[in-house]
Protein backbone atom coordinates (compact mmCIF):
# COMPACT_ATOMS: atom_id res chain seq x y z
CA UNK A 1 0.00 0.00 0.00
CA UNK A 2 2.76 2.42 0.97
CA UNK A 3 4.55 1.61 -2.30
CA UNK A 4 1.51 2.45 -4.37
CA UNK A 5 1.04 5.68 -2.41
CA UNK A 6 4.63 6.85 -2.85
CA UNK A 7 4.34 6.31 -6.61
CA UNK A 8 1.70 9.08 -6.78
CA UNK A 9 3.89 11.78 -5.18
CA UNK A 10 6.96 13.46 -6.65
CA UNK A 11 8.21 14.69 -3.24
CA UNK A 12 6.17 14.20 -0.08
CA UNK A 13 2.38 14.49 -0.02
CA UNK A 14 2.58 17.85 1.79
CA UNK A 15 5.03 19.46 -0.64
CA UNK A 16 3.14 18.12 -3.65
CA UNK A 17 -0.08 19.46 -2.18
CA UNK A 18 1.52 22.90 -1.65
CA UNK A 19 2.69 23.16 -5.28
CA UNK A 20 -0.64 21.83 -6.55
CA UNK A 21 -2.40 24.50 -4.47
CA UNK A 22 -0.18 27.28 -5.85
CA UNK A 23 -0.77 26.03 -9.41
CA UNK A 24 -4.55 25.79 -8.86
CA UNK A 25 -4.66 29.30 -7.35
CA UNK A 26 -2.75 30.61 -10.38
CA UNK A 27 -5.24 28.89 -12.69
CA UNK A 28 -8.03 30.47 -10.64
CA UNK A 29 -6.55 33.95 -11.22
CA UNK A 30 -6.14 33.29 -14.96
CA UNK A 31 -9.73 32.08 -15.14
CA UNK A 32 -10.85 35.31 -13.46
CA UNK A 33 -9.22 37.39 -16.21
CA UNK A 34 -10.68 35.13 -18.91
CA UNK A 35 -14.21 35.33 -17.49
CA UNK A 36 -14.25 38.95 -16.23
CA UNK A 37 -14.25 40.50 -19.70
CA UNK A 38 -16.69 38.07 -21.33
CA UNK A 39 -20.46 38.66 -21.27
CA UNK A 40 -22.82 38.22 -19.52
CA UNK A 41 -21.81 40.86 -16.96
CA UNK A 42 -23.66 40.64 -13.66
CA UNK A 43 -23.55 44.37 -12.85
CA UNK A 44 -26.42 44.12 -10.37
CA UNK A 45 -24.59 41.45 -8.37
CA UNK A 46 -21.32 43.45 -8.46
CA UNK A 47 -23.10 46.52 -7.05
CA UNK A 48 -24.85 44.34 -4.46
CA UNK A 49 -21.50 42.85 -3.38
CA UNK A 50 -19.83 46.31 -3.24
CA UNK A 51 -22.65 47.49 -1.00
CA UNK A 52 -22.40 44.38 1.21
CA UNK A 53 -18.62 44.66 1.54
CA UNK A 54 -18.73 48.41 2.17
CA UNK A 55 -21.50 48.22 4.75
CA UNK A 56 -19.99 45.21 6.48
CA UNK A 57 -16.66 46.98 7.05
CA UNK A 58 -17.57 50.65 7.34
CA UNK A 59 -18.12 50.87 11.12
CA UNK A 60 -14.96 48.94 11.96
CA UNK A 61 -12.87 50.93 9.48
CA UNK A 62 -14.22 54.22 10.86
CA UNK A 63 -13.34 53.21 14.41
CA UNK A 64 -9.93 51.75 13.55
CA UNK A 65 -8.97 54.64 11.30
CA UNK A 66 -9.97 57.22 13.87
CA UNK A 67 -8.17 55.45 16.73
CA UNK A 68 -5.07 54.89 14.55
CA UNK A 69 -4.91 58.62 13.79
CA UNK A 70 -5.24 59.63 17.45
CA UNK A 71 -2.88 56.98 18.85
CA UNK A 72 -0.21 57.53 16.20
CA UNK A 73 -0.27 61.28 16.87
CA UNK A 74 -0.18 60.78 20.64
CA UNK A 75 2.76 58.36 20.40
CA UNK A 76 4.75 60.54 18.00
CA UNK A 77 4.33 63.79 19.94
CA UNK A 78 6.88 63.14 22.77
CA UNK A 79 9.67 62.19 20.32
CA UNK A 80 9.09 65.29 18.19
CA UNK A 81 8.68 67.48 21.28
CA UNK A 82 12.23 66.55 22.39
CA UNK A 83 13.52 68.38 19.33
CA UNK A 84 10.87 71.12 19.48
CA UNK A 85 9.45 69.84 16.23
CA UNK A 86 5.78 69.24 17.12
CA UNK A 87 4.86 71.51 14.18
CA UNK A 88 6.01 68.59 11.95
CA UNK A 89 3.30 66.34 13.40
CA UNK A 90 0.75 66.92 10.59
CA UNK A 91 3.40 66.14 7.94
CA UNK A 92 4.67 63.05 9.75
CA UNK A 93 1.19 61.68 10.37
CA UNK A 94 0.03 62.44 6.81
CA UNK A 95 3.04 60.66 5.30
CA UNK A 96 2.52 57.61 7.53
CA UNK A 97 -1.21 57.45 6.91
CA UNK A 98 -1.24 58.12 3.16
CA UNK A 99 1.84 56.07 2.27
CA UNK A 100 1.21 53.05 4.48
CA UNK A 101 -1.35 52.96 7.26
CA UNK A 102 -4.63 53.74 5.48
CA UNK A 103 -4.33 51.05 2.82
CA UNK A 104 -2.71 48.53 5.16
CA UNK A 105 -5.18 48.93 8.03
CA UNK A 106 -8.14 48.81 5.61
CA UNK A 107 -6.82 45.71 3.88
CA UNK A 108 -6.16 43.89 7.13
CA UNK A 109 -9.66 44.66 8.37
CA UNK A 110 -11.14 43.57 5.04
CA UNK A 111 -9.02 40.39 5.08
CA UNK A 112 -10.57 39.53 8.42
CA UNK A 113 -14.12 40.64 7.82
CA UNK A 114 -14.69 40.31 4.09
CA UNK A 115 -12.19 37.53 3.28
CA UNK A 116 -13.55 35.25 6.00
CA UNK A 117 -17.12 36.03 5.03
CA UNK A 118 -16.52 35.24 1.34
CA UNK A 119 -14.59 32.06 2.24
CA UNK A 120 -17.35 30.90 4.59
CA UNK A 121 -20.24 31.82 2.29
CA UNK A 122 -18.80 30.16 -0.81
CA UNK A 123 -17.44 27.26 1.26
CA UNK A 124 -20.90 26.65 2.65
CA UNK A 125 -22.39 26.84 -0.85
CA UNK A 126 -19.78 24.34 -2.04
CA UNK A 127 -20.35 21.72 0.65
CA UNK A 128 -24.15 21.98 0.39
CA UNK A 129 -23.98 21.52 -3.41
CA UNK A 130 -25.41 24.99 -4.13
CA UNK A 131 -22.52 25.70 -6.51
CA UNK A 132 -23.23 22.44 -8.37
CA UNK A 133 -26.92 23.37 -8.42
CA UNK A 134 -25.98 26.56 -10.29
CA UNK A 135 -23.85 24.60 -12.72
CA UNK A 136 -26.63 22.15 -13.58
CA UNK A 137 -28.99 25.10 -14.11
CA UNK A 138 -26.60 26.31 -16.83
CA UNK A 139 -25.42 29.22 -14.66
CA UNK A 140 -21.66 29.77 -14.52
CA UNK A 141 -20.99 29.81 -10.75
CA UNK A 142 -17.45 31.12 -11.23
CA UNK A 143 -18.74 34.14 -13.11
CA UNK A 144 -21.74 34.77 -10.87
CA UNK A 145 -20.07 34.14 -7.50
CA UNK A 146 -16.31 34.58 -7.87
CA UNK A 147 -15.91 37.25 -10.58
CA UNK A 148 -18.51 39.53 -8.98
CA UNK A 149 -16.96 39.23 -5.51
CA UNK A 150 -13.38 39.71 -6.73
CA UNK A 151 -14.40 42.81 -8.71
CA UNK A 152 -16.36 44.09 -5.72
CA UNK A 153 -13.38 43.80 -3.34
CA UNK A 154 -11.08 45.32 -5.98
CA UNK A 155 -13.40 48.33 -6.29
CA UNK A 156 -14.41 48.69 -2.65
CA UNK A 157 -11.13 48.27 -0.76
CA UNK A 158 -9.47 51.35 -2.40
CA UNK A 159 -12.58 53.45 -1.64
CA UNK A 160 -12.56 52.22 1.96
CA UNK A 161 -8.80 52.90 2.06
CA UNK A 162 -9.31 56.54 1.06
CA UNK A 163 -12.10 56.84 3.61
CA UNK A 164 -9.92 55.26 6.30
CA UNK A 165 -7.11 57.73 5.49
CA UNK A 166 -9.50 60.66 5.79
CA UNK A 167 -10.90 59.44 9.14
CA UNK A 168 -7.39 58.76 10.47
CA UNK A 169 -6.26 62.28 9.54
CA UNK A 170 -9.39 63.61 11.20
CA UNK A 171 -8.51 61.68 14.38
CA UNK A 172 -5.01 63.05 14.22
CA UNK A 173 -6.34 66.57 13.73
CA UNK A 174 -8.50 66.31 16.87
CA UNK A 175 -5.43 65.38 18.90
CA UNK A 176 -3.27 68.13 17.36
CA UNK A 177 -6.07 70.64 17.82
CA UNK A 178 -6.42 69.72 21.50
CA UNK A 179 -2.72 70.52 22.09
CA UNK A 180 -1.75 73.21 19.59
CA UNK A 181 -5.08 74.85 18.74
CA UNK A 182 -4.40 74.40 14.99
CA UNK A 183 -7.19 75.04 12.50
CA UNK A 184 -8.30 72.16 10.29
CA UNK A 185 -7.25 74.05 7.14
CA UNK A 186 -3.71 74.66 8.33
CA UNK A 187 -3.49 71.04 9.59
CA UNK A 188 -4.40 69.66 6.18
CA UNK A 189 -2.27 72.27 4.32
CA UNK A 190 0.71 71.40 6.47
CA UNK A 191 0.05 67.68 6.18
CA UNK A 192 -0.43 67.54 2.43
CA UNK A 193 2.60 69.77 1.73
CA UNK A 194 4.75 66.66 2.24
CA UNK A 195 2.54 64.37 0.18
CA UNK A 196 3.18 63.90 -3.54
CA UNK A 197 0.87 62.51 -6.18
CA UNK A 198 3.11 59.44 -6.31
CA UNK A 199 2.21 58.76 -2.66
CA UNK A 200 -1.50 58.97 -3.39
CA UNK A 201 -1.32 56.92 -6.60
CA UNK A 202 0.83 54.28 -4.88
CA UNK A 203 -1.63 54.09 -2.00
CA UNK A 204 -4.60 53.64 -4.32
CA UNK A 205 -2.69 51.13 -6.46
CA UNK A 206 -1.75 49.15 -3.34
CA UNK A 207 -5.37 49.10 -2.19
CA UNK A 208 -6.49 47.80 -5.58
CA UNK A 209 -3.93 44.98 -5.39
CA UNK A 210 -4.89 44.22 -1.78
CA UNK A 211 -8.59 44.20 -2.65
CA UNK A 212 -7.99 41.88 -5.58
CA UNK A 213 -5.91 39.56 -3.35
CA UNK A 214 -8.59 39.43 -0.63
CA UNK A 215 -11.27 38.62 -3.21
CA UNK A 216 -9.24 35.98 -5.01
CA UNK A 217 -8.13 34.19 -1.84
CA UNK A 218 -11.62 34.27 -0.28
CA UNK A 219 -13.22 32.90 -3.44
CA UNK A 220 -10.48 30.34 -4.10
CA UNK A 221 -10.67 28.93 -0.58
CA UNK A 222 -14.48 28.93 -0.67
CA UNK A 223 -14.66 27.20 -4.04
CA UNK A 224 -12.23 24.53 -2.85
CA UNK A 225 -13.82 23.87 0.54
CA UNK A 226 -14.54 20.25 1.33
CA UNK A 227 -15.43 18.10 4.30
CA UNK A 228 -18.69 19.52 5.62
CA UNK A 229 -19.00 22.27 8.21
CA UNK A 230 -15.41 21.75 9.36
CA UNK A 231 -14.29 22.44 5.80
CA UNK A 232 -16.28 25.69 5.78
CA UNK A 233 -14.53 26.86 8.96
CA UNK A 234 -11.18 25.85 7.52
CA UNK A 235 -11.86 27.75 4.29
CA UNK A 236 -12.81 30.92 6.19
CA UNK A 237 -9.77 30.65 8.44
CA UNK A 238 -7.34 29.99 5.59
CA UNK A 239 -8.82 32.86 3.59
CA UNK A 240 -8.00 35.29 6.43
CA UNK A 241 -4.53 33.95 7.21
CA UNK A 242 -3.40 33.67 3.60
CA UNK A 243 -4.79 37.02 2.44
CA UNK A 244 -3.19 38.82 5.44
CA UNK A 245 0.12 37.14 4.70
CA UNK A 246 -0.05 38.09 1.01
CA UNK A 247 -1.09 41.68 1.85
CA UNK A 248 2.10 42.07 3.92
CA UNK A 249 4.26 40.56 1.17
CA UNK A 250 2.67 42.84 -1.45
CA UNK A 251 3.11 45.87 0.84
CA UNK A 252 6.86 45.21 1.07
CA UNK A 253 7.22 44.71 -2.70
CA UNK A 254 5.15 47.78 -3.65
CA UNK A 255 6.94 50.03 -1.10
CA UNK A 256 10.27 48.87 -2.50
CA UNK A 257 9.22 49.55 -6.09
CA UNK A 258 7.70 52.96 -5.25
CA UNK A 259 10.89 53.94 -3.41
CA UNK A 260 12.94 53.05 -6.50
CA UNK A 261 10.63 55.23 -8.59
CA UNK A 262 10.82 58.04 -6.03
CA UNK A 263 14.60 58.17 -5.75
CA UNK A 264 15.84 57.20 -9.19
Amino acid at each position, binding site marked *: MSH*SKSRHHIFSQGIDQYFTDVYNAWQFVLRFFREAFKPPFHFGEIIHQCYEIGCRSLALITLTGFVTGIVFTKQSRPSLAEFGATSWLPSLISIAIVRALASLVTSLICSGKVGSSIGA*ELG*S*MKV*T*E*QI*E*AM*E*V*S*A*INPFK*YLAVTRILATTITVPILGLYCGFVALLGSYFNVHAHEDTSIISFFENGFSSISFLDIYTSIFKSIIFGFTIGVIGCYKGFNASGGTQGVGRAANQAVVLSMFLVFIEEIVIVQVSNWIRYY
Partner: protein
Amino acid sequence: MHPSDTNLNNPTPVISIRGLYKSFGDLQVLKGVDLDVFKGENVVVLGRSGTGKSVLIKIIVGLLKPDKGRVNVLGQEVENLSGKELDALRLRVGFSFQNSALYDSMNVRENLEFPLKMNVKNLTKKQINRAVEEVLNAVGLKEKMKQMPADLSGGQRKRIGIARTLILKPEIMLYDEPTSGLDPITSTEINNLINEVRENYNTSSIIITHDLTCAKVTGDRVAMLLEGRFLKMGNFEEVFSTDDEQIKSFFNYNFIT
Protein backbone atom coordinates in the same frame (compact mmCIF):
# COMPACT_ATOMS: atom_id res chain seq x y z
CA MET B 1 -47.59 3.61 -18.54
CA HIS B 2 -45.74 0.35 -18.76
CA PRO B 3 -42.03 0.40 -19.53
CA SER B 4 -42.28 -2.19 -22.27
CA ASP B 5 -44.83 0.03 -24.05
CA THR B 6 -42.49 3.01 -23.96
CA ASN B 7 -39.59 0.94 -25.26
CA LEU B 8 -41.60 -0.33 -28.21
CA ASN B 9 -42.98 3.09 -29.11
CA ASN B 10 -39.70 4.97 -28.62
CA PRO B 11 -36.78 2.73 -29.49
CA THR B 12 -34.22 5.54 -29.30
CA PRO B 13 -33.12 6.07 -25.70
CA VAL B 14 -33.00 9.62 -24.29
CA ILE B 15 -30.03 8.56 -22.16
CA SER B 16 -27.59 5.93 -23.35
CA ILE B 17 -24.55 4.95 -21.29
CA ARG B 18 -21.94 2.46 -22.49
CA GLY B 19 -18.92 1.04 -20.69
CA LEU B 20 -18.72 3.76 -18.05
CA TYR B 21 -15.73 3.71 -15.69
CA LYS B 22 -14.96 6.17 -12.92
CA SER B 23 -12.50 6.05 -10.06
CA PHE B 24 -11.40 8.43 -7.33
CA GLY B 25 -7.74 7.79 -6.56
CA ASP B 26 -7.39 4.10 -5.85
CA LEU B 27 -11.12 3.62 -5.37
CA GLN B 28 -12.84 2.35 -8.51
CA VAL B 29 -16.51 3.34 -8.25
CA LEU B 30 -17.98 2.49 -11.65
CA LYS B 31 -16.63 -0.54 -13.51
CA GLY B 32 -18.26 -0.66 -16.89
CA VAL B 33 -21.83 0.56 -16.49
CA ASP B 34 -24.32 0.27 -19.37
CA LEU B 35 -27.77 1.84 -19.20
CA ASP B 36 -30.53 3.00 -21.54
CA VAL B 37 -33.40 5.24 -20.46
CA PHE B 38 -36.30 5.57 -22.90
CA LYS B 39 -38.68 8.47 -23.35
CA GLY B 40 -41.31 8.69 -20.64
CA GLU B 41 -39.62 6.02 -18.55
CA ASN B 42 -38.68 6.17 -14.85
CA VAL B 43 -35.56 4.11 -14.19
CA VAL B 44 -34.59 3.56 -10.57
CA VAL B 45 -30.95 2.91 -9.73
CA LEU B 46 -30.86 0.95 -6.49
CA GLY B 47 -27.78 0.24 -4.49
CA ARG B 48 -25.97 0.64 -1.20
CA SER B 49 -24.41 3.93 -0.17
CA GLY B 50 -21.04 4.59 -1.77
CA THR B 51 -21.62 2.37 -4.80
CA GLY B 52 -21.44 5.25 -7.26
CA LYS B 53 -25.14 5.94 -7.86
CA SER B 54 -24.81 9.71 -7.47
CA VAL B 55 -21.56 9.67 -9.45
CA LEU B 56 -23.48 8.13 -12.33
CA ILE B 57 -26.02 10.98 -12.60
CA LYS B 58 -23.33 13.63 -12.02
CA ILE B 59 -21.52 12.23 -15.05
CA ILE B 60 -24.75 12.46 -17.07
CA VAL B 61 -24.96 16.25 -16.52
CA GLY B 62 -21.21 16.75 -16.94
CA LEU B 63 -20.48 17.61 -13.31
CA LEU B 64 -17.95 14.77 -13.28
CA LYS B 65 -15.90 13.39 -16.14
CA PRO B 66 -15.75 9.64 -16.65
CA ASP B 67 -12.40 7.86 -16.93
CA LYS B 68 -13.73 5.76 -19.79
CA GLY B 69 -17.01 5.17 -21.56
CA ARG B 70 -19.66 7.01 -23.53
CA VAL B 71 -22.62 9.04 -22.28
CA ASN B 72 -25.23 10.13 -24.79
CA VAL B 73 -28.02 12.43 -23.56
CA LEU B 74 -30.82 13.53 -25.91
CA GLY B 75 -28.69 12.54 -28.88
CA GLN B 76 -25.57 14.40 -27.75
CA GLU B 77 -22.27 12.93 -26.55
CA VAL B 78 -21.66 14.73 -23.24
CA GLU B 79 -17.88 14.31 -23.48
CA ASN B 80 -17.65 16.15 -26.80
CA LEU B 81 -19.79 19.15 -25.89
CA SER B 82 -18.36 22.67 -25.62
CA GLY B 83 -19.24 24.75 -22.56
CA LYS B 84 -22.13 26.46 -24.34
CA GLU B 85 -23.47 23.21 -25.76
CA LEU B 86 -23.27 21.58 -22.32
CA ASP B 87 -25.21 24.50 -20.81
CA ALA B 88 -27.86 24.15 -23.51
CA LEU B 89 -28.15 20.44 -22.71
CA ARG B 90 -28.33 21.14 -18.97
CA LEU B 91 -31.38 23.33 -19.55
CA ARG B 92 -33.14 20.21 -20.83
CA VAL B 93 -32.08 18.05 -17.86
CA GLY B 94 -33.36 18.76 -14.35
CA PHE B 95 -31.27 17.66 -11.37
CA SER B 96 -32.82 17.31 -7.93
CA PHE B 97 -30.08 17.15 -5.29
CA GLN B 98 -30.07 14.87 -2.27
CA ASN B 99 -30.08 17.79 0.17
CA SER B 100 -32.12 20.00 -2.17
CA ALA B 101 -29.23 22.50 -2.55
CA LEU B 102 -31.54 25.50 -2.26
CA TYR B 103 -29.74 28.87 -2.29
CA ASP B 104 -29.98 29.75 1.37
CA SER B 105 -29.47 33.49 0.84
CA MET B 106 -32.63 33.62 -1.30
CA ASN B 107 -36.26 33.02 -0.35
CA VAL B 108 -38.35 30.36 -2.12
CA ARG B 109 -39.56 32.75 -4.81
CA GLU B 110 -36.04 33.99 -5.58
CA ASN B 111 -34.77 30.40 -5.67
CA LEU B 112 -37.33 29.61 -8.35
CA GLU B 113 -36.87 32.85 -10.31
CA PHE B 114 -33.08 32.64 -10.35
CA PRO B 115 -32.54 29.92 -13.01
CA LEU B 116 -35.31 31.41 -15.12
CA LYS B 117 -33.96 34.97 -15.03
CA MET B 118 -30.42 33.80 -15.70
CA ASN B 119 -31.32 31.62 -18.68
CA VAL B 120 -34.37 33.12 -20.36
CA LYS B 121 -33.94 36.70 -21.52
CA ASN B 122 -36.61 39.39 -21.90
CA LEU B 123 -39.17 37.77 -19.63
CA THR B 124 -41.78 40.12 -18.21
CA LYS B 125 -42.51 40.24 -14.49
CA LYS B 126 -45.93 38.74 -15.27
CA GLN B 127 -44.43 35.76 -17.13
CA ILE B 128 -41.98 35.11 -14.29
CA ASN B 129 -44.78 35.29 -11.70
CA ARG B 130 -46.89 32.88 -13.74
CA ALA B 131 -44.02 30.39 -14.08
CA VAL B 132 -43.26 30.55 -10.34
CA GLU B 133 -46.91 30.04 -9.41
CA GLU B 134 -47.24 27.16 -11.86
CA VAL B 135 -44.33 25.17 -10.42
CA LEU B 136 -45.31 25.96 -6.84
CA ASN B 137 -48.79 24.66 -7.60
CA ALA B 138 -47.23 21.56 -9.16
CA VAL B 139 -45.40 20.77 -5.92
CA GLY B 140 -48.28 21.98 -3.73
CA LEU B 141 -46.39 24.70 -1.86
CA LYS B 142 -47.81 27.97 -3.14
CA GLU B 143 -48.15 29.39 0.37
CA LYS B 144 -44.40 29.06 1.04
CA MET B 145 -43.35 31.57 -1.62
CA LYS B 146 -41.85 34.13 0.76
CA GLN B 147 -40.19 31.74 3.19
CA MET B 148 -36.45 31.20 3.46
CA PRO B 149 -35.11 27.65 2.87
CA ALA B 150 -34.01 27.44 6.52
CA ASP B 151 -37.67 27.77 7.58
CA LEU B 152 -38.83 24.81 5.48
CA SER B 153 -39.09 21.16 6.54
CA GLY B 154 -37.00 18.49 4.81
CA GLY B 155 -39.89 17.39 2.60
CA GLN B 156 -40.75 20.97 1.65
CA ARG B 157 -37.13 21.65 0.73
CA LYS B 158 -37.15 18.59 -1.55
CA ARG B 159 -40.34 19.80 -3.22
CA ILE B 160 -38.95 23.29 -3.77
CA GLY B 161 -35.76 21.72 -5.13
CA ILE B 162 -37.87 19.78 -7.64
CA ALA B 163 -39.90 22.93 -8.45
CA ARG B 164 -36.68 24.82 -9.18
CA THR B 165 -35.74 22.27 -11.82
CA LEU B 166 -39.29 22.13 -13.25
CA ILE B 167 -39.36 25.87 -13.91
CA LEU B 168 -37.02 25.30 -16.88
CA LYS B 169 -39.37 22.58 -18.22
CA PRO B 170 -36.80 19.77 -18.47
CA GLU B 171 -37.22 16.71 -20.66
CA ILE B 172 -35.21 14.52 -18.29
CA MET B 173 -35.27 14.53 -14.49
CA LEU B 174 -32.45 13.14 -12.36
CA TYR B 175 -33.40 12.58 -8.72
CA ASP B 176 -30.60 12.00 -6.23
CA GLU B 177 -31.99 10.18 -3.16
CA PRO B 178 -35.37 11.97 -3.27
CA THR B 179 -36.71 10.32 -0.10
CA SER B 180 -33.58 10.12 2.05
CA GLY B 181 -34.04 11.50 5.55
CA LEU B 182 -37.83 11.79 5.22
CA ASP B 183 -40.57 10.15 7.27
CA PRO B 184 -42.72 7.50 5.50
CA ILE B 185 -45.67 9.86 4.88
CA THR B 186 -43.50 12.59 3.36
CA SER B 187 -41.64 9.93 1.36
CA THR B 188 -44.95 8.75 -0.09
CA GLU B 189 -45.80 12.35 -1.03
CA ILE B 190 -42.45 12.74 -2.80
CA ASN B 191 -42.91 9.40 -4.60
CA ASN B 192 -46.33 10.55 -5.80
CA LEU B 193 -44.84 13.88 -6.87
CA ILE B 194 -42.19 12.08 -8.96
CA ASN B 195 -44.97 10.20 -10.78
CA GLU B 196 -47.01 13.40 -11.20
CA VAL B 197 -44.00 15.19 -12.67
CA ARG B 198 -43.63 12.38 -15.23
CA GLU B 199 -47.33 12.63 -16.14
CA ASN B 200 -47.62 16.41 -16.24
CA TYR B 201 -44.23 17.35 -17.68
CA ASN B 202 -43.65 14.28 -19.90
CA THR B 203 -40.25 13.67 -18.39
CA SER B 204 -38.01 10.64 -18.45
CA SER B 205 -36.22 10.09 -15.16
CA ILE B 206 -33.40 8.38 -13.35
CA ILE B 207 -34.13 8.02 -9.65
CA ILE B 208 -31.20 7.23 -7.42
CA THR B 209 -32.27 5.63 -4.17
CA HIS B 210 -31.81 2.85 -1.66
CA ASP B 211 -35.45 3.17 -0.57
CA LEU B 212 -37.31 0.06 -1.79
CA THR B 213 -40.76 1.68 -1.53
CA CYS B 214 -39.57 4.57 -3.69
CA ALA B 215 -38.16 2.06 -6.20
CA LYS B 216 -41.39 0.08 -6.30
CA VAL B 217 -43.72 3.09 -6.57
CA THR B 218 -41.79 5.25 -9.01
CA GLY B 219 -39.76 2.81 -11.12
CA ASP B 220 -40.81 1.32 -14.45
CA ARG B 221 -37.47 -0.45 -14.40
CA VAL B 222 -35.07 -1.03 -11.54
CA ALA B 223 -31.31 -1.33 -12.07
CA MET B 224 -29.36 -2.87 -9.22
CA LEU B 225 -25.90 -1.26 -8.89
CA LEU B 226 -23.50 -3.29 -6.82
CA GLU B 227 -19.71 -3.14 -6.83
CA GLY B 228 -19.63 -0.70 -9.74
CA ARG B 229 -21.79 -2.76 -12.12
CA PHE B 230 -25.47 -3.31 -12.79
CA LEU B 231 -26.02 -6.85 -11.50
CA LYS B 232 -29.67 -7.01 -12.47
CA MET B 233 -32.13 -4.87 -14.43
CA GLY B 234 -35.86 -5.29 -14.93
CA ASN B 235 -39.12 -4.40 -13.26
CA PHE B 236 -39.21 -4.37 -9.46
CA GLU B 237 -40.63 -7.89 -9.12
CA GLU B 238 -38.00 -9.36 -11.46
CA VAL B 239 -35.14 -7.77 -9.54
CA PHE B 240 -36.73 -8.59 -6.20
CA SER B 241 -37.20 -12.27 -7.03
CA THR B 242 -33.65 -12.81 -8.27
CA ASP B 243 -31.49 -15.67 -6.98
CA ASP B 244 -28.37 -13.50 -6.80
CA GLU B 245 -27.13 -13.65 -3.21
CA GLN B 246 -25.77 -10.08 -3.14
CA ILE B 247 -29.07 -8.63 -4.34
CA LYS B 248 -31.05 -10.82 -1.99
CA SER B 249 -28.96 -9.70 0.96
CA PHE B 250 -29.52 -6.03 -0.07
CA PHE B 251 -33.29 -6.53 -0.13
CA ASN B 252 -33.31 -8.54 3.09
CA TYR B 253 -31.22 -5.92 4.90
CA ASN B 254 -33.51 -3.13 3.71
CA PHE B 255 -36.62 -4.97 4.84
CA ILE B 256 -35.12 -5.70 8.25
CA THR B 257 -34.07 -2.08 8.78
